[in-house]
């Protein structure tokens, strides 16, 4: 009998949808090197998926995982991860979301579910502490995620069940299909929903009563309460709790970090400025709150729109992502559109960034005469035309007409259309991008080098754009200067390195980034997580151990990309538009990326990681440092080992 585990369950469920075989495996041996959740998933992807496998191949695997702190009172421990080889970049793909399902998975007795193969019929997984079933989902196929939740709750006769599911977009293999937990929380980016669709897997439902134990309860509870109080007492917590990520509107407007009209301009036009601030929307329409397990901040809001074009809509939806990447990106003027479009994308199970990225690309092409009504099923793609945007989202999700092209994401769509349209495709490594890459250098670098392809949640500094950072305090906590100066290039490689570590440890343990020093320097830092983990598991882990674990994982992600993609230094560059154009309008008008300095910053970034500056490949030296000799051997064999 294996020894008892604390914090994590030590068990992985492996389900092969082709053979219908279900196995339980001991995962304890992975913990010290990979922790749980996304770190563990990276290791499984590397070890088990052969180089010939493509994202929609039945031999691809998809891993649903819950971190070691999930289910406990650790602040913000509510994020679940889904990892695979993804269809947006063709390489390492991982997405996380707030979730009740992660906690239920652990109470069912498992840290992770590895799904392999492809079912011959639509199915969903019903996982409890008593049994695991592959259930027929024929009747659910075609349903939106919202209807799927209702139908599953009814079928299993339990209206408290939580699920993660795909909508029509995932079923139709839209490259950027997301997975939705219940109704409104999305595992966005990377197209994990399409991989579920390719496996005929509609949903995952978990519930259980098997307890989660911690090794040193007294110390664990004391530390959890200390961190909770630290978060609750920090300045800005109340504001963040009230407006969530939308509270950053004015700062983004001041910084020129609004991707207006596909990043042609850097701010909302000044005359609509006041009315575009989404914060008053939250004040006006909030009807209830939404928090996830352990979170002391509680930044979610349910809203009921009582007037205007979307009157009658009741949904959760107060987050920056749909606002930035669709409302701003597509040049809209109605702030409540954010709530509408967020609900619509979530129902259909399509990622905001894919929708916003592809539609804004098409709108700019239309503006420039590159696309005409001949191409767009007769639709005029005028900026800010909300009904047209909604119709396009529908067409994307069902791969209908022109939507079938946009469903590929802006990069592939521009490759299909040609006509020199690729300049307007705002993506990194093939993944649509909402981040503005001009005017905030650490943010830009982190988003650009992200192994999963463009994104700010795997290595960016969240408050660089805050304009009010206490530099001395930041130096004390981070050990780097210049966090308060978004326009300098110095020190930004180092900052990126630090946040690559933090974000990975968050994802491996389940802690939400917003509860950590990603959001606020007074919040949870790596040494705090090390303490929580030590008390939870009884396995002594230092802050340095966690840094090593995170860097081991990052190097493995690089190796996964080396195996499945042709990414190299060329893919760690800003988009062509960001390289070429100055910022337009607003306070930052005229500021331009200095590409010499960018390249120097990138050199520095590679040097810190001990990666080859020319190719961006890891060196044998760094791989061996993290015990990845076998990875070095593979990279050498395929000619992708970095020069020392």
């Amino acid at each position, binding site marked *: 009998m294996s020894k008892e585990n604390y914090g994590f369950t030590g068990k992985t469920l492996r389900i092969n949808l082709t053979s219908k075989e279900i196995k339980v495996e001991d995962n304890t041996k992975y913990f010290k090197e990979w922790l749980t959740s996304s770190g563990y998933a990276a290791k499984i992807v590397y070890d088990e998926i052969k180089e010939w496998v493509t994202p929609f191949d039945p031999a691809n695997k998809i891993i649903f995982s819950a971190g070691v702190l999930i289910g406990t009172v650790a602040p913000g421990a509510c994020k679940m991860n889904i990892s695979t080889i993804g269809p947006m970049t063709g390489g390492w793909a991982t997405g996380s979301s707030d979730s009740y399902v992660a906690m239920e998975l652990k109470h069912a007795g498992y840290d992770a579910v590895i799904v392999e193969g492809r079912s011959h019929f639509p199915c969903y997984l019903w996982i409890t502490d008593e049994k695991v079933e592959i259930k027929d989902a024929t009747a659910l196929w075609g349903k939106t995620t919202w209807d799927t939740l209702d139908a599953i709750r009814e079928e299993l006769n339990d209206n408290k069940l939580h699920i993660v599911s795909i909508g029509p977009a995932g079923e139709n293999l839209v490259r950027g299909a997301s997975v939705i937990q219940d109704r409104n929380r999305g595992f966005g980016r990377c197209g994990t929903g399409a991989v579920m669709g390719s496996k005929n897997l509609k949903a995952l439902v978990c519930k259980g009563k098997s307890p989660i134990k911690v090794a040193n309860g007294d110390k664990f509870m004391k530390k959890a309460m200390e961190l909770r109080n630290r978060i609750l007492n920090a300045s800005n917590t109340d504001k963040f709790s009230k407006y969530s990520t939308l509270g950053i509107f004015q700062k983004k407007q001041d910084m020129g970090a609004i991707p207006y009209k596909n990043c042609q301009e850097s701010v909302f036009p000044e005359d609509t400025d006041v009315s575009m601030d989404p914060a008053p929307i939250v004040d006006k329409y909030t009807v209830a709150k939404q*928090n996830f397990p352990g*979170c002391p901040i509680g930044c979610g809001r349910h809203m009921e729109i009582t007037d205007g074009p979307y009157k009658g809509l009741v949904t959760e939806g107060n987050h920056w992502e749909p606002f930035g990447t669709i409302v701003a990106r597509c040049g809209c003027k109605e702030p409540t559109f954010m709530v509408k479009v967020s609900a619509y994308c979530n129902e259909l199970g399509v990622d905001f960034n894919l929708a916003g990225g592809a539609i804004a690309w098409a709108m700019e092409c239309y503006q420039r005469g590159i696309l005409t009504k001949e191409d767009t099923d007769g639709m005029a793609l005028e900026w800010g035309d909300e009904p047209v945007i909604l119709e396009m989202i529908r067409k994307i999700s069902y791969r209908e007409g022109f939507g079938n092209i946009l469903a590929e994401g802006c990069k592939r769509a521009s490759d299909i259309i040609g006509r020199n349209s690729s300049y307007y495709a705002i993506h990194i490594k093939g993944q649509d991008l909402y981040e503005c890459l001009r005017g905030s250098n650490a943010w830009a670098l982190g988003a650009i080098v992200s192994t999963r392809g463009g994104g700010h949640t795997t290595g960016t500094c969240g408050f660089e754009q805050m304009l009010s950072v206490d530099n001395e305090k930041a130096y004390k906590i981070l050990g780097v200067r210049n966090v308060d100066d978004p326009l300098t290039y110095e020190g930004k490689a180092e900052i990126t390195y630090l946040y690559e570590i933090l974000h990975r440890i968050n994802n491996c343990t389940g802690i939400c980034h917003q509860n950590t020093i990603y959001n606020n320097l007074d919040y949870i830092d790596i040494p705090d997580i090390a303490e929580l983990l030590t008390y939870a598991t009884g396995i002594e882990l230092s802050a340095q151990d966690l840094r090593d674990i995170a860097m081991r994982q990052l190097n493995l992600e690089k190796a996964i990309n080396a195996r499945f993609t042709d990414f190299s230094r060329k893919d760690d560059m800003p988009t062509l538009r960001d390289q070429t154009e100055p910022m337009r309008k607003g306070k930052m008008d005229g500021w331009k990326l200095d590409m010499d300095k960018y390249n120097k910053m990138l050199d520095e970034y590679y040097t810190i990681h001990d990666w080859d500056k020319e190719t961006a490949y890891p060196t044998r030296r760094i791989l061996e440092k993290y015990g990845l000799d076998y990875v070095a051997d593979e990279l050498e064999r395929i000619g992708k080992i970095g020069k020392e």
Partner: protein
Amino acid sequence: MDYNMNLCGGCLTCEIACSYKHTGEFNHLVSAIEIIEREDKPGYKVRIHHDNCGDRIVCDGCIDIEGDPLCVQYCRKSDDLRTIINAFRATLRSQQKSEGYENE
């Protein structure tokens, strides 16, 4: 006993904390406090289990703890949950009195 709590965000941290207090393990589905989605509109209500009900713990108001019980300590809106728990404690006391259990 059900209570409306307008500012409850449904995080279930109270459930998780309650289960820890009584079992030394985290297991929110056995806790004495249960958070329920409202059917009429978005939001949640708080149910306190005061009778034996399946494997759930029966809420004893955590009168052994001076100050706030763990469920309240871990609530984002602790003032509101405190009011609910205190109301529950009061009913508990009056019941005990009428059943002659109160030894004061």
